[in-house]
């Protein structure tokens, strides 16, 4: 019966297919993410992480941003990893958030995809990397200046490192992180699927052609569509009626904040955190993309 209802309605079957697309496509990246976060639970205690990072918090944030290039994948995997690195907050909290924002945007896989999607505009790759890194670093600094630990209402379960074997600690951490992150991924994928069907494309195609309006529309579109950061460059490249600057905004905002990331952040960190962090990230990412875009792309 459920099956017939979905197959009978064009909107429902499109929404169902998009939901499956977002969810299935995220699963391998989430799996990679929880393997990394399980390894962090075993091998990287907060004390050890603090010892690796530069002493000064401002420098530690920059190091975490550049370190984001080392996790190839898209944004779904970096949320659980960042939650593990975040730990109890403290010294490594800001660096963990910077890593979460930088990793999906500036890793080599995403940059190569961007270069392939924009064969005539190599400056797009430079601008994307610069603006995304800038966003991540600014958000890390902002967290260390204004962030409040009481916003983090979701705590990780206590890991009995002393009493259990490493293997059990790894399996328990990976299991917990997958269940949490994937549950919220369901919310995000459903939201993306619904918006795909409800928001007509022509709205964006007509509004986005204007430069200023285009920046606003493309930022909103990045949040709504919740595309994988490895695919968004191709979609941006296809929106040829839109000037380059708004398309850069689309590429910088998308991996940092969208409906599925918001749901996952609310699940892993807490609603009070996500309700402040996501809108701020949206503003900072849009502003960074505009600033870097004006310098690198010359407003084109």
């Amino acid at each position, binding site marked *: 019966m459920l099956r017939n209802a979905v197959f009978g309605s064009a*909107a429902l079957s499109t929404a169902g297919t998009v939901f499956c697309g977002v969810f299935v496509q995220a699963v391998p990246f989430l799996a990679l993410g929880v393997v990394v976060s399980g390894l962090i639970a075993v091998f990287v205690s907060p004390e050890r992480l603090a010892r690796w990072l530069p002493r000064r918090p401002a420098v530690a944030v920059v190091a975490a941003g550049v370190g984001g290039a080392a996790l190839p994948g898209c944004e779904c995997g970096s949320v659980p990893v960042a939650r593990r690195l975040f730990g109890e907050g403290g010294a490594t909290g800001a660096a963990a958030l910077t890593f979460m924002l930088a990793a999906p945007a500036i890793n080599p896989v995403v940059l190569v995809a961007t270069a392939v999607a924009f064969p005539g505009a190599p400056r797009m790759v430079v601008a994307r990397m610069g603006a995304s890194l800038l966003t991540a670093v600014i958000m890390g600094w902002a967290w260390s200046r204004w962030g409040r630990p009481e916003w983090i209402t979701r705590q990780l379960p206590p890991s009995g490192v002393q009493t259990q074997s490493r293997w059990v600690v790894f399996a328990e951490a990976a299991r917990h992180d997958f269940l949490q992150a994937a549950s919220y991924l369901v919310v995000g994928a459903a939201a993306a699927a619904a918006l795909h069907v409800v928001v007509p494309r022509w709205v964006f195609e007509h509004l986005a052609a204007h430069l200023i309006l285009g920046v606003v529309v493309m930022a909103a579109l990045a949040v709504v569509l919740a595309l994988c950061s490895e695919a968004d460059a191709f979609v941006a490249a296809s929106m040829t009626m839109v000037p380059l600057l708004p398309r850069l905004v689309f590429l910088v905002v998308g991996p940092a904040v969208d409906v599925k990331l918001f749901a996952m952040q609310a699940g892993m960190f807490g609603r009070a955190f996500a309700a402040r962090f996501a809108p701020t990230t949206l503003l900072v990412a849009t502003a960074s993309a505009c600033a870097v875009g004006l310098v690198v792309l010359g407003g084109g």
Partner: protein
Amino acid sequence: MSRETENIVLLLVGISIAVITVSGAFTRYVKPGLLPWLAASALLLIALALVAIIGDIRRGGPRPSDHSEAHSHRTGIVWLLVVPILVLLVVAPPALRPSAAAPSVPAVSNVVLNRFPFAPLPPGSAPEVSLPEVLRREVQDSTGSLTNRSITVTGFVLNEAQGVDLGRIVIYCCAADAQLARLHLRGPAAPHAAGLPDNTWLRVEGQVKPLAGQPNYRMIPTLEATKVTRIDAPANPYDYPH
């Protein structure tokens, strides 16, 4: 949700991913290149669930720390994972149907970022060229490889007010980034396609009519069809650019 139920849900998520991977249904939702990663993810999830279940049985019950109040009151969210299990295993949504979903699938654009020489077409009287590649060659190929050359193109029927179009859906990563590539079908064999319902798959032989004027993103090339053959829907419903 109790720890035992969580383990079952985790196991079922792993099994659903395994089922769509083995059956090939995953190509309706994501690109085929994800196959090894999906298989590895399914194995990982099933292994994590089994390790937890077997470990709990050996210990004679769930780990005591999971019964603490701080952790148990928010695990209800895990019930949401029942949704993808049901959707993937029971509903199994079909591949995107662009004619039914036209507003949500934008047209593939063929902007001229820069023109460069493409590799020559394969030899033969009417070599197979994918529909999106026809669009790319038409506007970006500086060698004009499609000029006065018969080609074979596969796609599905899209009935429009002005006539029949041949369409193909392109996905880069997953169904959320789908785009529609299309050609107008005209010429002597086009009437054979005119009476067919939307989504009928065709193999069409013909020549692309050169675009008049400066190519831009709104232009849709026209294929002068000389031969139209009905075919079964291909195993991979989408076209993947790389």
